[in-house]
């Protein structure tokens, strides 16, 4: 993954945070807004590198908090911790599998809001919580899980377009070419 891909993914994160603020038909239909940042962090951790994971967690978290009533920075830590945990175990994950992407998206979508709410309560804030919040949590988790494979496809496409692709290897080798003739 090169620098251009990284910038494009960050720009996509910026647009997604904006979309989460302005597009609210899911909130009206299902009673909860789906947060896609955990899905981005899952992609960064499984397909990217620690730098991309950190950048998405920091910038995505700060952008989201700046448009919300959350205290600034409260979303950064849960995103970063989730990303780092996935990054730590990435060698044993079959990242190409749809089911793995869904499960990791589901888990990240469940873990991040939970950690954010715990942090808010720790800092003495009073978020709106109740039995209805369980439904919101389920919607957020499943929404994030369902979105993760799509995020993988889209970001892989960006990577494919913007990175140098290795040439396909053939059995033909120039060094072994036998030239016939007088010379």
């Amino acid at each position: 993954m090169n620098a251009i891909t990284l910038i494009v993914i960050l720009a996509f994160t910026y647009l997604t945070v904006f979309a989460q603020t302005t597009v609210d038909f899911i909130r009206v239909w299902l009673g909860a807004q789906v947060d896609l940042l955990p899905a981005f962090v899952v992609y960064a951790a499984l397909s990217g590198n620690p730098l991309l994971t950190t950048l998405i967690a920091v910038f995505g978290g700060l952008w989201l908090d700046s448009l919300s009533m959350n205290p600034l920075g409260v979303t950064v830590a849960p995103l970063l911790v989730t990303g780092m945990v996935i990054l730590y175990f990435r060698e044993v994950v079959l990242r190409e599998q749809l089911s793995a992407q869904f499960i990791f998206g589901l888990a990240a979508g469940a873990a991040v809001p939970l950690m954010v709410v715990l942090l808010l309560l720790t800092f003495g804030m009073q978020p709106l919580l109740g039995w209805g919040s369980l439904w919101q949590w389920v919607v957020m988790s499943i929404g994030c899980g369902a979105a993760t494979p799509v995020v993988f496809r889209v970001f892989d496409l960006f990577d494919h377009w913007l990175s140098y692709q290795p040439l396909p290897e053939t059995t033909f080798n120039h060094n072994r070419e036998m030239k016939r003739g007088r010379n």
Partner: protein
Amino acid sequence: MFKRAHYVAMTAVLLMVLLLLSLPDQTAARVKLAISALFLPLFGLSQSTQTATGKVTDATLPRNVLVNQLEQLRLENMQLKVLQMQSDAVMEENRRLRAMMQSKPQTTWNLRMASVIGRDPANWWRTIQINLGSEDGVRENLAVMSSQGLVGRVHRVGAHRAQVVLIGSQECKVAAVVDKSRENGVIGPSSSAAILDPNLVDLSYMTRNSRLEPGQLVYTSGLGGIFPQGILVGSIVDTRTVEHGLYVEARVKLAVNINQLEEVWVLLPPKP
């Protein structure tokens, strides 16, 4: 996979988060406004797109629909003119009686229309963003309403944008009074089961002898100093006793539909 540099970077980020979280309120608000200013071009673009779409829709409306709308508006305008005349007479009488009683005259509302440009991306807060800021005279704690009723109060103000906390949030409690029975209470977030319906709030701290019935209207009482008296909040849905019968609580259906807010009015300080 993990190198020492990664651990150092992660620790640095976590320290930065701790630093941000421990900033004083005013400083944190300024930093937040500075970061959210990055979204101003997108908010502007979104508004321009909406305006352009509206214009295209208006241009393609059939003539008979427009004529019907015009007729309806003419009729409504005539009715409103009659009501305005009645209201002027009542206001004049009120002013005269207040002058006789040497009471302070009632202030007229100084309203400014704003468009809703965004909502809180987090599910545990109820806030909206409006396209008016300090340069338009908006400041913190001003009441925000729609033509249907009370919406909330201004929480944070940027130069061209403000954040409004919606009624039903912990941060927007409203002193309210029930029509006819004149029982006073406080509007706050609804009980846990109704979190999914932002149009339901609770009217609490009313005495157990309160005479409340479904359908009664609830208005702002003017106590507390933020919301002026007489703004419609909603109507009572049902009541229940709480704290072992010590208080009565009522569920109130808001007059405004929080999910469909597009334009709101900010109540600016009265003109001198």
